[in-house]
């Protein structure tokens, strides 16, 4: 009987094929703009989570002796028209904005992805029906439809999130459908079908994971759009209601005191700009990192 020798030599790490996820992460972290975006996003998430620990003042407590104080050592960003500390309100405002961004996009994903999967995979009448409904929703300008929905639902942060989520949904329906159409004729989907997998399994186990990168990129960019939309609705008085802090409603009251207290308008606006910019940078970075055409270049 011949001796069997086992080759125990380790394969060098550089020869181990890189998983797509690892490759995408490596490429994402190689982009300075994406890393900057991720850092700012992490910073604002930390602000939102640890707001009570970071805030020396109550965000809603009013003080008539501190009305419209310019930035100082005790109030770094100054105070507003009701004597509230602006820095603390900006910190707490991060909660409303990030929550609105994530929850709205969560709503859009949970409605849009199943509809897009059904339209793309099943086709036929259902596809036409979902397609026309999507076209109809996309025909209504995003913010105008969100305002109309928020107006009919009633002004509150929760309703603003629902309004933004519903108006963002058609983007995900269309994206998911397009991705499914591109993927469903691939060999591995044909193979899964040939071995007798049920439809739901093909869709959720074989198709959905392969369209996730595109959905992830769109979700990140949509969070940026949703944060602006929430700020816009709160600015108009249809989102977060006073006295609870929100960057949009802070800008609304700042507008009335532009001559005497311009600092009231600077900080909440800057916070919206930085948050939206960072989500856009992360989204752009993710798109490049997950783009198969970039594989050969890195």
């Amino acid at each position, binding site marked *: 009987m011949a001796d069997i020798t086992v080759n125990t030599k380790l394969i060098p790490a550089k020869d181990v094929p890189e998983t797509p996820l690892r490759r995408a992460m490596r490429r994402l972290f190689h982009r300075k703009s994406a890393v900057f975006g991720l850092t700012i996003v992490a910073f604002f998430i930390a602000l939102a989570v640890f707001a009570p620990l970071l805030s020396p003042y109550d965000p809603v407590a009013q003080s008539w002796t501190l009305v419209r104080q310019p930035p100082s050592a005790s109030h770094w960003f100054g105070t507003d028209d009701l004597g509230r500390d602006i820095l603390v309100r900006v910190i707490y405002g991060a909660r409303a904005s990030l929550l609105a961004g994530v929850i709205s996009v969560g709503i859009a994903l949970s409605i849009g992805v199943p509809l897009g999967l059904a339209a793309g995979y099943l086709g036929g009448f259902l596809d036409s029906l979902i397609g026309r409904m999507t076209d109809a929703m996309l025909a209504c300008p995003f*913010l105008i439809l969100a305002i109309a929905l928020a107006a009919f639902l009633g002004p509150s942060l929760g309703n603003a999130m629902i309004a933004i989520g519903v108006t963002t949904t058609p983007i995900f329906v269309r994206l998911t459908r397009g991705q499914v159409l591109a993927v469903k004729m691939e060999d591995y989907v044909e193979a899964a079908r040939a071995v007798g997998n049920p439809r739901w399994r093909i869709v959720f186990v074989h198709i959905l994971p392969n369209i996730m990168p595109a959905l992830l990129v769109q979700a990140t960019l949509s969070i940026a759009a949703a944060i602006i939309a929430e700020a816009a609705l709160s600015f108009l008085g249809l989102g977060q209601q006073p006295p609870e802090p929100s960057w949009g409603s802070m800008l609304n009251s700042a507008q009335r005191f532009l001559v005497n207290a311009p600092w009231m308008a600077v900080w909440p606006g800057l916070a919206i700009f930085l948050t*939206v*910019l960072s989500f856009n940078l992360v989204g752009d970075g993710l798109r490049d990192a997950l783009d198969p055409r970039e594989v050969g270049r890195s």
Partner: protein
Amino acid sequence: MLNLLGKRLLQLIPTLFFVSVIIFSLQQLLPGDPALIMAGEERDPAVIEQIRQQYHLDRPFPVQYLYWVQGVLSGNLGESMRIHVPVLDLILQKLPVTIQLGSMAIVIALVIGISAGIISAIKKNTIWDYAANAFALWGISTPNFWLGIMLIFLFSVKLGWLPASGYVPLTEDWRASLASTIMPAFVLGNAIAAILMRHTRSAMLQVLESDYVRTARAKGLYERTVILKHAMRNALTPVITLGALEFGTLLSGAVLTEQIFTIPGFGKLIIDAVFNRDYAVVQGVVLVTATVYIVLNLLADIAYVLVNPRLRT
């Protein structure tokens, strides 16, 4: 071409049908009795009953919808609950203001966006390219209501150059009209300029790598002629048609911009209607907006096919 036009027109019918269903269904979202909510502070049972009769609220939802559609098709978008003026008249009254603002915004967006996009493409990977990309990112990420407030602070409060709010019709005094709309138009055009810059850059980069541009260069033409006469003309066609699709961004932006600068246009109409609980006006504005958007989309599609001979067959 006619086939394409016919096909696209046929596709409009179900889209418009669903748009009308969505807009009409908004009414169903009102918590409680719609007639009571529409009546606002008016608690007179006779008034509430009159609203119920007027909007057929005592009939089933599909019947209410049919009455509404019948009215819409005959040009009746309902009547404002507050000022008792037909919604269509209100819209037609406010529309010219928004058209003036929107036209100025588009001119600003085209000038800034297209120039920045061309410079960015021909100076790829230089400081100009990075600056143009930074501008695009800034434009996309800046909330226009914040930009508006900051511009008011700078140009009205600090420098005193421009009025902070209000509107003067073009027919009344064109100088004052331009002064009152230039800041809001810039705010409105800023985000669209950023989007156009990105479209122009990518279209120009694609065209600059094409064979006919290489041929033009090989013929010994000046670089300026190659860019302006050969590359730009072809690159801008898709950009302008894509630009037409930014109409939605323009109208959404107009809502906020008109609110900040107190301009009595289409955008302010919807916000005032929301706060006055004038739901017929809200529905009317959304319906008109969506219809105009759909028609513009169709025109953009046709223009794209007309200027692109490869798509005509």
